[in-house]
């Protein structure tokens, strides 16, 4: 069965304290792995798409990497405005989402 698991479920960081979020997956027929940001009561906002192992994408303080079994979202020197839930999803023709990591960055 296709499965996506994210860890940790929640993460509290001080402003400037770098960390990584993990997304491990077991799927057949992967057509890409996506990272989204979701603010409370809002729709998922696209961040990155990764298609093959070894691929990396960067945007401001965020960097996403992909291996054959997992993906990491690295957050460097986070700011309070980075506080949100970060969702990982694998594309098998439809998106299968993990449960998300809720990040809180304190000033």
């Amino acid at each position, binding site marked *: 069965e296709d499965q996506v698991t994210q860890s940790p479920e929640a993460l509290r960081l001080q402003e400037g304290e770098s960390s990584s979020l993990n997304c491990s997956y077991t799927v057949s027929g992967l057509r890409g792995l*996506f990272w989204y940001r979701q603010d409370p*009561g*809002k729709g998922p906002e696209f961040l990155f798409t990764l*298609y093959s192992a070894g691929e990396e994408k960067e945007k401001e303080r965020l960097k996403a990497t992909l291996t054959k079994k997992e993906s990491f979202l690295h957050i460097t020197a986070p700011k309070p405005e980075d506080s949100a839930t970060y969702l990982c999803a694998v*594309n098998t*023709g*439809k*998106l*299968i*989402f993990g449960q998300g990591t809720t990040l809180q960055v304190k000033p």
Partner: protein
Amino acid sequence: EPEVTQTPSHQVTQMGQEVILRCVPISNHLYFYWYRQILGQKVEFLVSFYNNEISEKSEIFDDQFSVERPDGSNFTLKIRSTKLEDSAMYFCASSGEFRGETQYFGPGTRLLVL
């Protein structure tokens, strides 16, 4: 920047009533999707739509649900007889020419069934 829009933002209905949720996908996109998120739970796939027909649907998408693209811009989700457990955020998404392309999501419709 093009974006997916959804209306209404909130909908309150009585159990057993029909609701129609509306979406305007990004204009040059060809694949359309509905997902839902029950409060505190994962985002779940409902249905995908391509070339004016359903290409895939989940177990959740039973006979009470239907989708339609009534014109060149709108994409709708109809729930014929709502149940309490249909209360959720419903998200529309669209993607471009190829199945592996990024799916862009709308802001959602919060449906509350009383």
